[in-house]
């Protein structure tokens, strides 16, 4: 990318699809000024009419950032994606000072952030409101769908709370 901020404001390096998964491998990002996104997730998910909330899986390996002052990561829409950093080159120490062997980067949802293996970035300006879960845990997508009666579940959000024992009662 040419280092002329006035020409590239709003530019994105990679926009991941709103449906399906994607593998990003062997990519170098150079000279992304402020107000740019190296990686933006969920194409067109900024439009409520085309929202998809099915948790796309993004697999990243062997990438590097050089001279980046814009967002390294921006999650569009509902921020449901799981970004699998397969070799630690996506997060690196720039994320929070820790170098991970691998990581799963997800939005800072409370039911995930409460796990000690998942730590927030120290630079939310560049990494959005994400947390990185290290290789001691595995983060996967689970979908509940076809809830019925449909009228009951119209525009109703799901709530998930981790509990220590199956017999624990949520207040």
């Amino acid at each position, binding site marked *: 990318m040419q280092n002329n901020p006035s020409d590239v404001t709003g530019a994105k390096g990679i926009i991941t699809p709103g449906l399906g998964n994607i593998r990003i491998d062997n990519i170098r990002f150079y000279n992304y000024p402020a107000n740019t996104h190296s990686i933006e997730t969920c194409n067109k998910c900024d439009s409520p009419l085309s929202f998809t909330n099915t948790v796309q899986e993004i697999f990243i390996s062997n990438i590097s950032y050089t001279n980046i002052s814009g967002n390294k990561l921006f999650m569009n829409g509902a921020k449901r994606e799981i970004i699998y950093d397969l070799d630690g080159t996506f997060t690196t120490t720039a994320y929070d000072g820790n170098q991970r062997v691998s990581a799963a980067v997800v939005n800072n949802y409370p039911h995930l952030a409460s796990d000690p293996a998942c730590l927030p970035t120290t630079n939310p300006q560049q990494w959005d409101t994400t947390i990185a879960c290290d290789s001691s845990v595995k983060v996967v997508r689970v979908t509940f*769908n076809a809830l*019925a009666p449909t009228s009951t579940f119209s525009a109703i959000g799901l709530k998930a709370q981790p*509990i220590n024992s199956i017999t624990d009662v949520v207040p």
Partner: protein
Amino acid sequence: MDSKTLPKTYALPYITGNIYNIWWLTGLDFDHLSMFSSYSLTTNDLGIRFKFNYTLNREMYDIGPIRPGENFNVSSLFTPDGNFTDSSCYNGEYYHDNSVGNRTL
């Protein structure tokens, strides 16, 4: 999988090996629910246990097969009188307690 073709879809990341209490609003009962997991979740991974509470009495739940992958072990239904603990719940098994005050799937 498209949220437009699968209405009332709730997809989220979860951590394997954990137990999650799941509910909607202040507690809504469902008549039907399907569940899909990512192909990233393999049979070698720790399971994820979901606990659903409900309000109105349900004598039973019909549990269908998982496609593709492992079928639920419907012969291993735990009952409220069963010895149901964290260590006694294995992949594909489920537990239903419709006693007043508990009402848990």
